[in-house]
């Protein structure tokens, strides 16, 4: 993929960090404000897509990016299922909220919901980026 002009690159350099932090904010406040793991994950994936589109990439990098994306996607899924399993192990019911609930409207509250949000964000972010790579990569990526 070819990169874009200097103007786009400069602007991207400035905004990319803010977008990333905004994504993190959406994820971490998922149990307090609108948004959450899915929306935040999409924003995080957007950061990677923006970087790839602006600065371009080589086929080799795309391949390794796709591998990493698929690993992170699995980790996100595993984290989510593990949280559910932990409920079964620690409190006897699948998916039970086994952590202390905390004070409502504080960052550290709502038990397992923030952890689930983070897991979903990893899964959605990595998954969406992998989809983008599958559609836009220079060479068709087949792993063996």
């Amino acid at each position: 993929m070819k990169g874009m002009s200097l103007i786009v690159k400069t602007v991207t350099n400035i905004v990319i960090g803010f977008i990333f932090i905004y994504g993190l904010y959406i994820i971490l406040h998922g149990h307090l404000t609108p948004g959450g793991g899915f929306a935040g994950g999409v924003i995080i994936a957007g950061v990677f897509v923006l970087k790839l589109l602006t600065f371009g990439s080589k086929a080799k990098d795309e391949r390794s990016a796709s591998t990493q994306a698929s690993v992170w996607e699995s980790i996100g899924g595993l984290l989510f299922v593990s949280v559910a399993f932990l409920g079964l192990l620690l409190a006897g019911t699948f998916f039970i909220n086994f952590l202390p609930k905390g004070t409502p409207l504080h960052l550290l509250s709502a038990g397992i919901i923030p952890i689930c949000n983070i897991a979903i964000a990893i899964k959605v972010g990595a998954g969406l980026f992998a989809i983008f790579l599958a559609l836009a990569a220079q060479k068709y990526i087949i792993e063996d």
Partner: protein
Amino acid sequence: MAFIPLFIALPLFSAFLIPILGKIYKPLVWLLSTAVAFVLFVLALYGVAVSQEISMVVYKMGNWPPPLGIVMAYDSFSAFMVLVISIIVFACSMFSLRFLSTYTGNWKFYTLLMLMTAGMMGIVITGDLFNMFVFLEIAALSSYALVAFGLKGEQLEASFKYIVMGEIAGLIFLLTIALIYAKTSTLNLADISTALQFAKNTTFFWMTLGMLLFAFSIKAALVPFHSWLLDAYPAAPAPISSLLAGICTKVFGIYTSARIIFNIFGLSRANDPLFFNFLIGLGLLSIIFAGVTAFSQNDYKRLLAYSSISQVGFILLGFGIGNYYGVLGAILFILAHSLAKGLLFLTSGSVVHSAGTTDIKKLSGLGERMSTTAWSFRIGALSVIGMPPLIGFFAKLFIIIGAIKAGFLWIAIAAGVLSLLSLGYLLRIENNVFMKKGKSEAKPAPFTMRVAMVLLVVLIVLVGVGYQTIVDYIAGPAAHALLRGLEYSHMVFNYFSMSF
């Protein structure tokens, strides 16, 4: 009752673990998926044992009580379906090891296989309508990808056709869920069933039922909506054809519609004879149309695909008869069909693997070269036709008994005569592929493939010989669970007031 969520969680967990394991050491992937399928089978047997004592087990996800939270409602019918799913998934996973050796990226196959298993398990044990839709989509999406797994032109085309048809069904289902939610303000199946009784025989009642049946008929590939299946089964890798034909369409279409018709909408032969006659008509249409068309097929797998559609018609016929024996026959038929058609598609995979083609005009002389495959085919075919000691016979027998008891003598005769259709088209394969003398370079199937096929053969014979045990402990309670009708919702809500 902590085993119930494991049916979904175990395959889901391994589906996410497989991409990571695949990076480390590839053979582990196959081992994991086969082991998970085996553990599911053991859990399913345990589940059957539990369902002998407690006819309805309700599991609250995250301890939220119904109708607010999502529940898993596990009764004898679910126990039966879970058992059948785990058997077929185990055989397919076993078979895939050598079959997939010619495909690239073959560990991804097991991710999709496990996702599909999780989806199917979810459909049969959930007690929530929207949850059912989600699991249906999980299983359907992975099956779209699996059909296209070979990445050749015809496979992509078949998969595309399947996606379009499948998503029409999925979206109609979603629309119906929205309508039901708007009317009843609940998504819990038991709650919906209670609420719908106040709207019984209104336009809304029949319209939602019709839309659901439309969606499920596409998923089950009943005759007017069967076109996706004819491309999808031949194009998919053989283990997946086996899984799709053996169990997927039954779970997506037949289980869901049976559950909806009997337990949620609470229809019964006695009160709604017209509707049940309609089901019989739909079943007969599938049997006759697909059975006759199968004669003109020259492709091994496409012929089996037609045969599959025709067999699904028999299941619907059993449900349409609607008395105990009819429903029992239909449930036994699900078991018989899963084992036999799963086996037949596995033999087709073995033939493709060794001879490289599925055109029955070009194949010959395989009966001597591949004797395990040939005999597996013969046993499976005999069960489909309905030879006495095999399970296929008893399934048809109960449907015929049901038809006679319900006063439909002509249906009993028709079901018997139409079985001959399957004899005719399966003999075409037997004659051309296995009996015909000819030079063939084909090697015998690899060991794991033979194990998978022999496993299913043994099960077909065992289940057939011990049919009385199956009826007493597995299929009979499942039929009772369906015929219990609206009591389903009482049992779900009463579960928590009972003490254990």
